């Protein structure tokens, strides 16, 4: 998991490494402070009690600017005491000032590295998604991809920052302080031999016991909020059926579940608190007893004892910190896994290196079987054989789930066939590069999407170099020009995210114009005029006919009137081709077509179209 995190630090190795270096320096300086303090206090004590020094002390004699060492057993004079206090006082202030600087620098570097890390992660993910095939996208669902790029990356960043700062600091503090404690007073340091493992065990038990309890609490909490969410979205149903009391009972139960699980988790936490405190207080008392008797015996000075008490806080709090970090890292693991699920996904469509381009709109389906799940027993399309000549117009009809959209999505290779092949301009679609193939094939999708930006910017997706004349021409064919001009800003009208400020029918016409600007060899319209009235629909179709003689058009429609003039009409039924022919032929021979025709004409006055 750590190696996975480190991958994201690419380009930010230096700030990451220096964060660690500065954190180590900060920690090292911090643990030196009590030592210097002990020297001052010890010297003071022996001076005021007129006892000999217990250890040798080196100090700077500032009147002569030279280092002087007083040996163990010597007596301290008032002059010496001043020099010693001054020397170690300066050392302490300088050290703590340096430590402050290092800490702040480490914080800054960590911010640089952390933000860079998340930038990299987001970029890796976003770039990866661009290489995904439709099958990959379907697998993850868009909502989950968005969460991974935003929320999960953010969590991973927190872990990464913790990794290069706290994860370094806590063990370093533990080790450094223990070493210092050993140097300072070996006869006291063995207390930690008991305290550290005891605290470690308590914290580990706490972490493993409490974690699931809190998880349960969060689960109940989510369930409770889901209850509110559900009530909100269905408030009309609730009110219409007069179920306010019923809903309230449900909520009360959910809230009670949260209360009980929270109580359970918190109670355990509270119960563990005295245990950890016992270890910490016990350590202090043990230090006082042992250190105190050494002082009484004269083998130790009181400054050393005070320093040991500081070390005890540092050591024991780093043990607790380490356990805390471990829990945090485990919790963030889920996010990192979710990120890598995307990064490790292999695009299901391998691009061809060929530079072949599409020059004619001929399409051939040969024995095509297709399944979204790549499962032979769950075929969406089965045994499709179809020949569409260049420049033909083809209509496809069928019910929901009969495979109309699936069929046309194979042409620009949004999905790969399970068996058989799809040929465009005589070449298997898998032998084109995706870029070149899609240059030649334009598709207006069932779910029409526009992007935030002006109408013109959106239309230019079809062709970035399109002139204003070309844009207007395409919009006229798509019957979009008139309504665009009715907006105060015309072609410069800003569309909101997803094109929210135009109606469904207008959106469809803009999408058609966008596709037309590509000047494709093959134009596919997947139920893309459903929200457009029949008169406009007919006008768009006749416009398409005149636009490019050689362009193949494929139209999927619910309304038979939209396809009845096509050169060929394909009737799909449950993933298989039921019949192919002209309107006239199908009216004579195809029962599904006849039935559909009758149901749609029923009641319509003659000549209504």
């Amino acid at each position, binding site marked *: 998991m750590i190696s996975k995190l480190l991958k994201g630090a690419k380009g930010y190795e230096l700030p990451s490494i220096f964060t660690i270096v500065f954190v180590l320096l900060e920690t090292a300086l911090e643990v030196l*402070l009590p030592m210097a303090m002990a020297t001052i*206090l010890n010297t003071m004590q022996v001076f*005021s*009690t007129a006892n000999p020094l217990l250890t040798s002390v080196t100090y700077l004699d500032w009147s002569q600017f030279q280092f002087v060492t007083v040996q163990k057993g010597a007596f301290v004079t008032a002059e010496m005491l001043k020099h010693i*206090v001054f020397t170690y*006082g300066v050392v302490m202030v300088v050290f703590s*000032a340096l430590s402050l600087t290092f*800490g702040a620098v480490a*914080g*800054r570097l960590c*911010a*640089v590295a*952390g*933000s860079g890390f998340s930038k990299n992660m*987001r970029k890796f993910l*976003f*770039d990866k998604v661009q290489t995904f095939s439709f099958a990959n*996208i379907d697998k993850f669902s868009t909502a989950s991809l*968005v969460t991974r790029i935003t929320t999960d990356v953010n*969590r991973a960043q927190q872990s990464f920052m913790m990794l290069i700062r706290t994860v370094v600091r806590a063990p370093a503090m533990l080790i450094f302080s223990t070493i210092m404690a050993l140097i300072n007073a070996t006869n006291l340091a063995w207390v930690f031999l008991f305290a550290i493992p005891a605290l470690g065990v308590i914290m580990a038990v706490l972490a493993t016991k409490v974690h699931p309890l809190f998880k349960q609490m969060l689960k109940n909490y989510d369930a*409770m909020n*889901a209850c509110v969410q559900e*009530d*909100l979205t*269905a408030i009309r*149903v609730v*009110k*219409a*059926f007069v179920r306010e009391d*019923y809903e*309230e009972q449900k909520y*009360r139960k959910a809230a*009670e579940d*949260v*209360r009980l699980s929270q109580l359970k988790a918190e*109670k355990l936490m509270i119960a563990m*608190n*005295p245990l950890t*405190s*016992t270890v910490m*207080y016990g350590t*202090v*008392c043990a230090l*006082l007893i042992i250190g*105190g008797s050494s*002082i*009484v015996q004269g083998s130790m000075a009181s400054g050393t004892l*005070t320093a040991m008490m*500081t070390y005890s806080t540092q050591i024991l709090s780093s043990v607790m910190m380490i356990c805390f970090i471990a829990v945090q890292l485990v919790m963030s693991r889920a996010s990192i896994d979710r990120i890598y699920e995307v990064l490790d996904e292999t695009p299901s469509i391998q691009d061809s290196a060929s530079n072949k381009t599409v020059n004619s709109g001929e399409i051939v389906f040969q024995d095509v079987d297709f399944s979204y799940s790549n499962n032979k027993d769950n075929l969406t399309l089965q045994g499709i054989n179809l020949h569409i000549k260049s420049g033909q117009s083809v209509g496809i009809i069928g019910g*929901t789930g009969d495979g109309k959209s699936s069929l046309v999505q194979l042409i620009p290779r*949004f999905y790969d066939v399970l068996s058989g092949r799809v040929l465009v301009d005589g070449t298997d679609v898998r032998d084109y590069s*995706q870029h070149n193939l*899609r240059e030649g094939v*334009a598709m207006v*999708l069932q779910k029409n999407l526009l992007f*935030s930006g002006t109408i013109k910017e959106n239309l230019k997706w079809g062709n970035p170099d399109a002139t204003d004349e070309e844009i207007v021409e395409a919009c006229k064919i798509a019957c979009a020009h008139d309504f665009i001009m009715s907006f105060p800003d015309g072609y410069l009208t800003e569309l909101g995210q*997803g094109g929210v400020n135009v109606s469904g029918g207008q959106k469809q016409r803009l999408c058609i114009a966008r596709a037309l600007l590509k000047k494709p060899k093959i134009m596919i319209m997947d139920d893309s005029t459903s929200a457009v009235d*029949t008169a406009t629909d007919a006008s768009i179709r006749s416009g398409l006919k005149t636009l490019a003689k050689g362009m193949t058009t494929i139209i999927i429609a619910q*309304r038979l009137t939209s396809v009845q003039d096509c050169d060929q009409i394909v009737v799909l039924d449950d993933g298989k081709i039921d019949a192919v022919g002209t309107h006239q032929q199908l009216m004579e021979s195809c029962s599904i077509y006849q039935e559909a025709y009758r*149901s749609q004409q029923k009641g319509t006055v003659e000549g209504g179209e």
Partner: protein
Amino acid sequence: MAGPRKGRMMHAPRPQNFKGTLLRLVGFLKPHAGKMIFALCLVFVQILANILATATLTPLINGLTVKQGDFAVKLTGIAWLDNLAYSGVAEDKLSYLGIMVGAIACIYATSLVVNYVLNRILVSISTTTMTEMRNQLFSHMQKLPLKVFDTTTHGDLMSHYTNDLDMMNEFIARCIPQLVSSVFTIVGVYTAMFVLSWQLALLMLAMMVIMLLVVKGIGGKSRKNFVALQQTVGKINGYVEEMIEGQKVVKAFNHEQQSVDGFEVINDDLCQTATRANTYSNIMGPIMNNLSHVFYALVSVVGALVATSAENPIVYVGIIASFLMYIRNITQPIQQISQQINLVFMAIAGGERVFKLMDTPAEVDEGYVTLVHANIDQDGNITESATRTGKWAWKHPHSDGTITYTELKGDVRFDDVTFGYTEEKVVLKNISLYATPGQKIAFVGSTGAGKTTITNLINRFYDVPDGRIRYDGINITKIKKADLRRSLAMVLQETHLFTGTVMENIRYGRLDATDEECIAAAKCANAHHFIKHLPDGYNTMLTRDGENLSQGQRQLIAIARAAVADPPVLILDEATSSIDTRTEWLIEKGMDALMQGRTTFVIAHRLSTVRNSNAIMVLEQGQIIERGDHEDLIAQKGKYYQLYTGMFELS
């Protein structure tokens, strides 16, 4: 954990009515007043214990080092203890040590017990109060008129539960005790410090001032930068959402590179903003921590200097030891106090939002006509029945004390109704219509023409002036809302199902319906067949609005739900709009069965659904512009004719 919380903090606007909201918030603690006061006493005891334990260090350490004869130095103030310390004999000093450590151990033990009891009390108070607040909020929210739900985004309402309540809980569970504890600790520690040495205490006072300034300075910068960060994060989320939602279009137009380029610009921007924001939050900890070290150093030096000029320098050895411990004790409270105050503001702001919702008046219901089960004899005399009879009557108490019963038939009349959701904009103009029992009335028209509004008025989601709408001859404002709605069943365009089994969802229509009745309703709605093929049949769990079902299947369950309610009047609001013709045909069969013998209001987009209605109203801009049955309207060659033949698009 720290991340999102910090993020939220930034949005907290300053509360409008600080005092009032605070008092009201604290008011929730009233039932636990005794416990709370006890808890605060315990906080006090605990702090006292901690300060005392540290204060004991001075006489302890000094007692070990003073020589006999230094009687001028007061150690503990307890004569026999001091004598023990002054005695030159090592054994006696050891017993002094033992007694003093024993005292500290006792203080610690007290602190442990107090801490445990205190936390238990606090957690019990906070979880109970929180649950109470939640229940009150939910209960009140449900009673609000539909207008509130239509004019407030669900996200805003949700945030009361996920954000504001949590903040208030934080305030009660942590803020109050911690703030009290921080203040007590600081006051207590400084008192102890001044008693020990006023020179060093002054130095420590300087430390507190500097720390508070740093917290304020860096904290303010940090907050400002996090606001900027939130905005950039919003921007990148929007972009990512848009591009991933539109990924298929991106691919269809070979637009991958442009999409990546656009992303990189925002991503770089985010990286810079995040670096700035994180810098401030990252350096806060080390700076505060190391500032305490600087003062640790200063106390040692200044203490030593003060000692050399003092009468009894030895005393300072112990005093310094205590001070060094005190520095550790107060660094955290000082750091926390500003965070706590921030949290108080956030909690008050959250509380204000929650209380605002709680103060929104609930749906007013002055109706007094109720719906009762009825027995009707051959002469048409109606008597009330305690059990379900399949017949209902309106029970109408009059001012003179008499009660009359009217049979529930399903006769609905609108008499010149004019209505607008806001004063300025009229949605319905002079609508008059009637539906006699068993009739099917359809409304057709563009979005915004006022179709749904009509149904909103029938079930009194919104109210019209008196006497304009009559139900079985009774002015509907006189009918109790719950009873009125019980007599109507709705199937809405957006089907909403609840988490639970299919059976439970159907039973939602009538809670006392037996399994058999539910299954019969499902059969009637043509839903039985597909339900049986679900993995667990009627016991299949539906989650998140029935995401595991198709739109058509969900619609069928909603119809079954209405069927089991078995009401005399049915409202179908665009019930089949997002379903393809084939599925619609299936549903239509279910619907036809359901509509049998009931007064039905149908709103439809697709005209095939309304063809066989008794009357079709074409609405435009709040007015009925055409009415009649299908043949009449086709013959009129008006708007309906245009719609029907597809010459006009409905938007």
